[in-house]
């Protein structure tokens, strides 16, 4: 049972393994260049466990940014995590003591895996989410440490391997598209974000995009619910 659960979780997290090792490597190298060694990489990957924010964090640490700047920057870069919680309230309900860790380990990639996964019947739902979260976290820690300790001696060009993250999100997107008849939310997500990217530029489009998505979903709610009522009878 337990072995089966971990095996299943391991297989579904393989794409994240590839992506996290590469992204972690990059982070570890950058952090070392900025003058912070392996212990710092360990602390950040364990306690923050955040891809893009750790990259931003390197420049905040190196530049000696004010604590207010650090707090506001983190708020801006990480605000999208509010969305993950909102849509996982029911999935994570009743997870007990595991919940504290599930919340801490809720990265983009963990979210993508748990939000659409069909948990096999033979396992406890929350144990499965926990296994996925912990494996991803371990991959990330390993990648960051590897970059910090051995970043300079990578023998082959891994340029482009970080595309595995994009590919993961694309497969989840396609999977969701094929399994759901209601396509408005997916279109709102892509369209709204693209629009904000064009208007606000790649540095500051995420928060406007989140607001636009919320607004568009609120507006589409009545028509969507009417359609569902019609379908149900």
């Amino acid at each position, binding site marked *: 049972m337990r072995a089966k659960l971990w095996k299943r979780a391991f297989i579904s997290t393989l794409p994240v393994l590839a992506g996290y090792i590469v992204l972690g490597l990059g982070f570890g190298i950058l952090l070392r260049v900025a003058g*912070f060694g392996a212990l710092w990489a360990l602390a950040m990957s364990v306690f923050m466990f955040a891809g893009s924010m750790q990259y931003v964090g390197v420049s905040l640490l190196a530049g000696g940014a004010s604590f207010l700047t650090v707090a506001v920057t983190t*708020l801006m870069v990480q605000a999208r995590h509010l969305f993950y919680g909102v*849509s996982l309230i029911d999935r994570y309900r009743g997870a007990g003591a595991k919940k504290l860790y599930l919340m801490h380990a809720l990265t983009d990639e963990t979210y993508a895996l748990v939000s659409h996964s069909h948990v096999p019947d033979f396992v406890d739902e929350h144990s499965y989410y926990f296994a996925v979260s912990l494996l991803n976290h371990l991959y990330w820690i390993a990648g960051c440490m590897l970059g910090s300790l051995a970043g300079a001696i990578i023998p082959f060009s891994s*340029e482009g391997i970080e595309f595995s993250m994009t590919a993961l999100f694309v497969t989840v997107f396609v999977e969701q598209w094929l399994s759901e008849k209601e396509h408005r939310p997916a279109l*709102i*997500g*892509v369209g709204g974000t693209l629009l904000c*990217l064009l208007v606000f530029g790649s540095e500051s489009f995420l928060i406007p995009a989140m607001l636009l998505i919320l607004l568009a979903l609120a507006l589409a709610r009545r028509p969507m619910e009417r359609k569902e009522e019609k379908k149900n009878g």
Partner: protein
Amino acid sequence: MDKTTHAIIAIVIMAGVTFLLRSLPFLIFSKGKTPPFIEFLGKYLPFAIIGMLVVYCLKDVRPLAYPYGLPELIAVLIVALLHIWKRNTLLSIVSGTVSYMLLIQLVF
């Protein structure tokens, strides 16, 4: 303040704010019944978020300058079409990633 103290406090702030954002929705809606709009969001937001993340990953693509975003476009198409055809997540991701690496290292 010396560099080490500054870095420790900065990491505590970054970790704290991140955890706050990740846990806040659970803390707010843990007691009692979830409001209908939040329940609606819980059901449909994931579709929108994944769409947002796809765009987020491709945000640095410059379609107006060489190579015009072609490696990303081709690789995304490979992933999507292969996934529609076979519905095998690992196969789609590995094929797309290897294609992308070959494209940017050897072709473009």
